[in-house]
């Protein structure tokens, strides 16, 4: 572990601590200094946690409360019904339809996105002319508001008069019912997500790649490893923590997907026959058009638990990979191997 701002420095300058247990009487100033030393860090990070409690913890707890009642959106709180809302949601075929759609859209977006982002990052990691230009360019889609992206893509994938339909027609292909058939609609929505997030993730991965010491590559090259070998044996293992971070954030985002499927057909809640209704859209339909706030809240909690579960699975996989990583790897010698051995040992 390298030095970190979160760990205590080994030689604190203030206050000077006597090595022996004998407790000397501290002056007020010393007490203040000690207070400052012990408490200040928490005060510095407090704003985040206070904010988090207000807009994170409180709504989560309040939602739990709502989910235990018959709660009409407009008329408000009704009778206490215990877990009945949860039972109703879990026995609703629409919920499971939404669950399947969410997973499907998530897989269709996350997998190609990670592969392309890693590839893009590797390309940008090369010595390119106009580096900043290329790097900024791939971030551009991220700057565009998701609503605008969704509106534009809904036009592009319009079954009847979109450019994609025109292209298919030009090649004499059958029109694809983008907003009506399940898989095409998932593909179209996943493409919006990919468009928006690939560049963003590529930049994060690029940052991780740039942190890899160049001499590792040099010594590998001297040992005769070609570019592809160096990518798989040095780059990928060394950006693994970042990859995991990217996977976790895209899992959380992917399970909560709302804007893209909502605006893909704005007049419905995820397709006329719920072809692309995700869990959050299902929640939205319960909460607003159907005005059942209790069941909507139960759905929110179920989604919350699903996300936690997904997080735990991610964590377990991460641990498994790390353990596997402890085995000696034949190719890289020198600093890379040393680094990895250090990482695995700790």
């Amino acid at each position, binding site marked *: *572990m390298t030095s*970190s701002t*979160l760990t205590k420095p080994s030689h604190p300058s203030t206050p000077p601590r006597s090595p022996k247990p004998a407790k000397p009487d501290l002056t007020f100033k010393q007490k203040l200094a000690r207070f400052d030393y012990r408490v200040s860090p928490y005060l510095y990070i407090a704003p*985040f946690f206070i*904010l*988090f409690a207000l*807009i*994170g913890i409180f*709504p989560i707890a309040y939602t739990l409360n709502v989910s235990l009642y018959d709660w009409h*959106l*407009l*008329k408000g709180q009704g009778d206490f019904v215990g877990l009945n809302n949860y039972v109703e949601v879990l026995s*609703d*075929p*629409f919920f499971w339809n939404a669950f399947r759609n969410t997973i499907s859209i998530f897989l269709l977006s996350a997998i190609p996105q990670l592969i392309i982002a890693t590839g893009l990052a590797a390309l940008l990691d090369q010595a390119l002319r106009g580096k900043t230009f290329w790097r900024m360019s791939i971030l551009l889609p991220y700057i565009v508001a998701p609503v605008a992206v969704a509106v534009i893509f809904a036009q592009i994938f319009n079954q*009847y*008069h979109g450019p994609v339909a025109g292209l298919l027609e030009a090649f004499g292909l059958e029109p694809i*019912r983008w*907003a*009506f058939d399940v898989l095409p609609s998932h593909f179209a929505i996943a493409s919006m997500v990919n468009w928006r997030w690939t560049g963003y993730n590529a930049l994060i991965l690029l940052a991780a790649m740039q942190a890899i010491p160049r001499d590792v590559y040099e010594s590998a090259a001297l040992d005769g490893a070609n570019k592809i070998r160096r990518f798989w044996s040095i780059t990928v293992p*060394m950006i693994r*923590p970042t990859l*995991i*971070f990217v996977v*976790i*954030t895209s899992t*959380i*985002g992917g399970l*909560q997907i*709302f804007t893209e499927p909502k605006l893909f*057909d*704005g*007049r*419905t*809640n995820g397709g*006329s*026959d*719920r072809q692309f209704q995700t869990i959050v859209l299902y929640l939205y*339909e319960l909460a*607003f*058009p*159907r*005005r059942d*706030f209790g069941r909507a809240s139960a759905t929110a909690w179920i989604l919350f638990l699903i996300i936690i579960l997904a*997080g735990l699975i991610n964590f377990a996989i991460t641990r498994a990979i*790390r353990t596997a990583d402890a085995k000696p790897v034949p190719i890289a010698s020198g600093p890379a191997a040393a*680094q990895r051995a250090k*990482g695995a040992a*700790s």
Partner: protein
Amino acid sequence: MKPSRRKIAASVAGVATLALIATGCAASGSSNGGEDGGKVTLSITTFGTMGVDANYEKYMEENPNVTIEATNLEGGGAARDDAYAKIAAGTGLSDIVAIEEGWLGTIAEVSDSFVDLRDYGIDDEKDSWLDWKFKQGTDADGRVIGAGLDIGPQGLCYRGDLFEAAGLPSERTAVAEYFGGEDATWDRFFEVGQEYKDKSGKAFYHSPRFFWNSFVNQQEEGYYKKDGETLNIEGNDVLKDQFVKIVDAEKAGLGAGLPGWDVGPEAKEGKYAVYMCPSWMLGIVQGYYDEGTTDSGWDFADVLPGGSANWGGAFLGVSESSEHKEEAAKLALWLAAPEQQAASFELAGPYPSTVEGQKLVADTKSAFFNDAPIGEIFAARSEGVIAQVKGPEDSNIQDNVFGPVFDRVSQGEITDGETAWKEALKLLDQIVG
């Protein structure tokens, strides 16, 4: 190099917080105009093409202390969800909110979110409205929560050029006669559709949804019985027969298999030839074309299969949370007054719900609809029209029960009327039951 757990946790928490910030607080605060030296900012939320905006400038000129902050949402569904969310939150409603007939019943369940317009003098003008329209805006306790704007008498929008090309009559009185004039029936409508289809090889209408809605609105009791609480769908043979007829017409290729809305490009390509037109729909059809278009081929005929009926129409309510109720009510009542209703009609087509307003537009013609005398036609189309009693789930049933089933029929997924009806009942049970 390995990330500490703490770092991951912090990152995850950070991302989660950002997500919450990003999603949690959509635009809030609307009526915070403040009263600096009598200056008032009034917010108003409308939807679709209501034409109310025709009058804002004039009001601000006449009342220099008032600034109108207008928001127009794309569709009635969006406006409904927006209003529900803000009522539930207890904050965020505009000073003036446009409410659609289809979900007025739901709003009436929590009518205390809106002021009683009787406190602001609506009773003095009571007689200017059509009686039934005024009653619709009144809740069970007699509070008047909505000032009527427009009503939705229906005529038939049709493409004169395409009718002519297919060898059908194209002049509007001849068209009306061809469909049966005063005695026009739905059977005749489907017959003409079949004839058009046979002669032109093209679909007659874009989606069966509108024709279904129109039919439901023609019945004395629609999705609900007159009490506004009992569902009137299962075992209702009148509805079912028409439903099956529509499915059969789809099977015969009368529908173009298009979605219910946003079908402008297809209109330009002549992919369909008729559009069900309650008054407020004129603005929607017109909106498919550039402003000032007069050669689109669209025309408007004084005929409705199955007889006259009302479809839709809006109200203006003043939210209880408004900081300027007095000013807002004044503006709402002014916007709903005959003269302003007439101006809205001339801009976008929603037909006045006041007797005087209807008189004012009697001579109005529409350049877009081939100079059709729309004022005169709507006057004829609204004779004897009385709106049906709507229940709390009316717009939900229209959008989320029958809408999806018709889409599946249009897409050829269901071809049998009996099966489609069962699907609709199943959805009804899941969504409303």
